[in-house]
């Protein structure tokens, strides 16, 4: 079964990544602003490899005007437009006749999302093969990578999972928290590479990650968790009804805040660096090249410092995401003793 899935995923990766076409520089450079900040942060249909744009394939599941469902693949956006079946309206591709059902197209952010997951898979599989051979279980761990793995794993187990999830239950959630921590850390750090895109600076990516935490939290919720949602203990009857909508909203604001926090942190870091480097080009246009040379000294120094800060933020945000996931899961799996009065259970709602 695992072999089948490996084959299937490999086939999908090869099939989807086999057909990017290399095209020359983009046509839309007629913008009057010297630097396009939002355009640099936004998702694209190409993957930049050392300055060369590799256009990614577009996959559409669409319905034509006869009502039959069709699946079309094109090598790039230009080929999709050249086929005559599709037209572009404000960056969104829609069929000329009929309607788009799902746009499966690859984008740069999705690609970097996969790179993050791939790096995590390679890292853990390497460490796993080491442990299978007995290195690290019967002897001390050997090599830089395995020691790094142990450092991160023990950090997640002892600093994140154990203090926040009570009792022996934390063991079940350590792999999930470790996966979240490492994949977000990899994605954030890949975003710092030259020409790279930050997958976590996209609200869809962080929303998917946060929804994992949401589902894990809800499916591991105990009876007490649901009792706190629908029949809050220890308060008068009228307040119980009042608490139901509040608690229901609280269930959704937690993952929402997780998604927004990660997205806004990575996005703001990226915008800040682009804006400060963009000062050089803006000064060049407004006051001439000498002023631009002067500003470049300031810009480069500040950007270097910001880059170090971003490296810290990349790890810190991954830590905060996994820490808050652990706190939310810990709140859901908690089991209260209901024999004495409930004063101590009315804890502050840590929703945002």
């Amino acid at each position, binding site marked *: 079964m695992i072999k089948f899935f490996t084959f299937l995923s490999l086939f999908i990766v090869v099939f989807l990544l086999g057909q990017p076409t290399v095209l020359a520089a983009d046509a839309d450079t007629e913008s009057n602003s010297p630097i396009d900040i939002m355009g640099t942060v936004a998702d694209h249909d190409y993957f930049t490899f050392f300055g060369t744009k590799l256009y990614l394939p577009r996959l559409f599941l669409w319905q034509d005007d006869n009502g039959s469902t069709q699946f079309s693949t094109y090598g790039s956006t230009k080929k999709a437009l050249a086929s005559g079946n599709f037209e572009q309206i404000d960056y969104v591709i829609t069929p000329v006749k009929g309607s788009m059902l799902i746009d499966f197209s690859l984008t740069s952010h999705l690609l970097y999302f996969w790179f993050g997951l791939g790096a995590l898979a390679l890292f853990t599989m390497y460490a796993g093969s080491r442990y299978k051979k007995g290195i690290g279980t019967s002897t001390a761990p050997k090599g830089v990578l395995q020691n790094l793995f142990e450092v991160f794993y023990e950090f997640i187990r002892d600093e994140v999972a154990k203090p926040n999830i009570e009792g022996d239950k934390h063991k079940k959630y350590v792999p999930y928290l470790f996966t979240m921590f490492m994949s977000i850390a990899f994605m954030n750090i890949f975003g710092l590479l030259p020409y790279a895109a930050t997958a976590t600076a996209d609200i869809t990516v962080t929303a998917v990650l946060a929804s994992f935490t949401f589902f894990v939290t809800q499916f591991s919720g105990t009876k007490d968790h649901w009792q706190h949602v629908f029949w809050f203990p220890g308060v008068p009857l009228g307040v119980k009804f009042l608490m139901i909508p509040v608690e229901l909203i609280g269930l959704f604001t937690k993952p929402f805040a997780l998604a927004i*926090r990660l997205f806004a942190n990575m996005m703001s870091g990226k915008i800040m660096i682009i804006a400060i480097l963009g000062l050089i080009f803006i000064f060049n246009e407004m006051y001439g090249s000498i002023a631009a040379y002067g500003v470049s000294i300031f810009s480069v120094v500040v950007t270097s410092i910001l880059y170090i800060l971003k490296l810290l933020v990349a790890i810190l945000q991954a830590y905060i995401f996994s820490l808050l996931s652990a*706190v939310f899961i810990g709140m859901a799996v908690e089991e209260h003793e209901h024999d004495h009065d409930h004063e101590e259970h009315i804890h502050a709602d840590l929703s945002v």
Partner: protein
Amino acid sequence: MGLLAAGIGAGIVAVGAGIGIGLIGKGAVESIARQPEASGDIRGAMILTAAFIEGVALFGAIICIILALG
């Protein structure tokens, strides 16, 4: 008008978040000075609480971005 609202709003958000995180830092540093052996736990609690405040601040920031762009 939207731009003005976004600018003022972002400024107020930054002021609020700055006061909040400043108070957390103050409390954490004072308690670490009082009890240096508990610095690990205090640091964890500090980062957690700062993250909550940051979450609120970023909600405001996102609203400001939407105001400015929309």
